C-alpha cells in the first residue's frame, strides 16, 4: 500500500512511541481557572503546592492573590492520562540537508502519566455542571455511540 505514494502518506502521520507510554512517570496536574499565556518551566513546588490547604469541603489555594477552590478529579475508569510532547527533530545532530529529508517523520512521546488531576475554580469548586465534568463523561457516551450494534 505504501508504494510510490508512501512518502506523501507518511507526511500525514505522527507516530507515537509506544515504549514511552509504558515508562511515563506519574505527574502532578492542576487545571487552573485562568489563562497563563506562556509555556515554560515554573516553580510550582515552591509557590503553589505549599499554599494548598485542605478545608472541610475541598482544597484551597491562592494564585496571584485570588482565592481558588478545588478538588481532585479522577481520570474516568478504563482510561489513562498522558502528557505528550512532540519530539525534537534533533537538527543539531543532523545536517540541514538531512533534516529536510527527514521532515516527514514526526514522533510524539509520552513524557508523563496521570490518573487524577486537581480541578480549580475561582472562589468555588467547579460544580456538577462544569464543562470539564461533562467532558469527563464523554468516554462512556462515546463507548455507546461507537460500540457495534447487534444484528437482527
Amino acid at each position, binding site marked *: 500500500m505504501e508504494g510510490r505514494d508512501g512518502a506523501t502518506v507518511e507526511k*500525514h502521520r505522527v507516530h507515537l512511541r509506544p515504549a514511552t507510554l509504558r515508562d511515563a512517570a506519574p505527574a502532578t496536574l492542576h487545571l*487552573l481557572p485562568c489563562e*497563563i499565556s506562556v509555556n515554560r518551566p515554573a516553580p510550582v513546588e515552591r509557590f503553589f503546592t505549599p499554599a494548598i490547604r485542605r478545608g472541610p469541603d475541598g482544597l484551597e489555594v491562592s494564585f496571584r492573590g485570588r482565592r481558588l477552590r478545588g478538588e481532585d478529579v479522577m481520570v474516568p475508569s478504563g482510561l489513562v492520562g498522558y502528557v505528550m510532547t512532540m519530539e525534537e527533530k534533533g537538527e543539531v545532530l543532523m545536517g540541514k540537508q538531512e533534516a529536510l529529508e527527514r521532515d516527514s517523520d514526526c514522533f510524539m512521546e509520552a513524557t508523563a502519566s496521570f490518573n487524577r488531576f486537581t480541578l480549580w475554580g475561582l472562589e468555588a469548586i467547579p460544580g456538577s455542571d462544569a464543562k*470539564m465534568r461533562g467532558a469527563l463523561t464523554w468516554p462512556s457516551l462515546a463507548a455507546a455511540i461507537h460500540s457495534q*450494534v447487534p444484528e437482527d
Partner: protein
Amino acid sequence: MKNGLMFIKLANPCSGEGALYLFNMCLQQLFEIKVFKEKHHSWFINQSVQSGGLLHFATPMDPLFLLLHYLIKAGKEGKFQPLDQVVVDDAFPNCILLLKLPELEKLLWHVTEEKEIDKKKYYKYSKEKTLKWLEKKVNQTIAALKTNKVNVGARVQSTAVFSGDQVSSDKEEDYIRYAHGLISEYIPKELSDALSKYLKLPEPSPSLPNPPSKKIKLSDEPVEAKEDYTKFNTKDLKTGKKNSKMTAAQKALAKVDKSGMKSIDAFFGAKNKKKIGKI
C-alpha cells in the same frame, strides 16, 4: 515504525474536513481525538505551566462512520464497486488504513448491499439498511444517556431563559432528540435529516433552540466571563468580602458553565486547530 500507534488525519464524516484520529497498527483499532477546550484555563504540569488548558480524549471510534462517508459518495453512482475503489481520497490518503481493519465485511453488512463475483466482493450503499443501523445506534446511545444521567431536557439547552427551578422531567422524545444530535456529529447533514424523519422526530418548535450544531458551538464562547471577572476584582478589593454566598465571580462562572450545556460535543471546543497539543 510499522507496528505502533500513530495519529492520522482523516475526513470527518460529518463535515468532510480533516480531523485527527489515532490508529493502533497492532490491534487494528481506530480512536477519535476530541479536545476539551474552555476559555481561561491553563495547566500546571509538575514544575511547568502550559497555556490553553486543553484536555484531549482518545475514544474508540466505529470505523463504519468513516467508511460511510465514502460509501455514500460512491453510492451516488448507483453501482456495485469493490471497496478499494470506494475508499479513495487524495486529500486524506491515510483512509486506506480503514481497509485494513478486521471484520470489515461484518461492518459493511449494516449499510450496504453486496455482490460476490469471482470471489471478489462488490458493495453498494443502502440508505434503508443504514437508517436501520443508525436507529440501533440511537437506541444504545439513549441507554447510555440514561445510565450516565445526562440531563437532556430542552430546558438545559436554553441559554436565554434561566429560571430557578431546574426540576427536569426528561421525556423520551428529549432523549431521542439528544441521541440523534450526538449521532448526527458522525453523519452528513442529509442523512441526519433522513434519520430525524425515520425516528419520527417532530420539527423543533420555534420556541426551542435548534438541535446542537457546529454553528451554535462556535458562537458559544462565554463572552461575559472576562468582564465579570474584573468586576469581581474591584468588588473584592473594596469590600474584602470573601465568604459571601454567591460572589459576582461565582455568578459569572455559573453562567459560563451552564451556557455550554448543549450537547456533549459542545463541551469540547471547535475543530482541532492545533494539530497536536499537549496532553
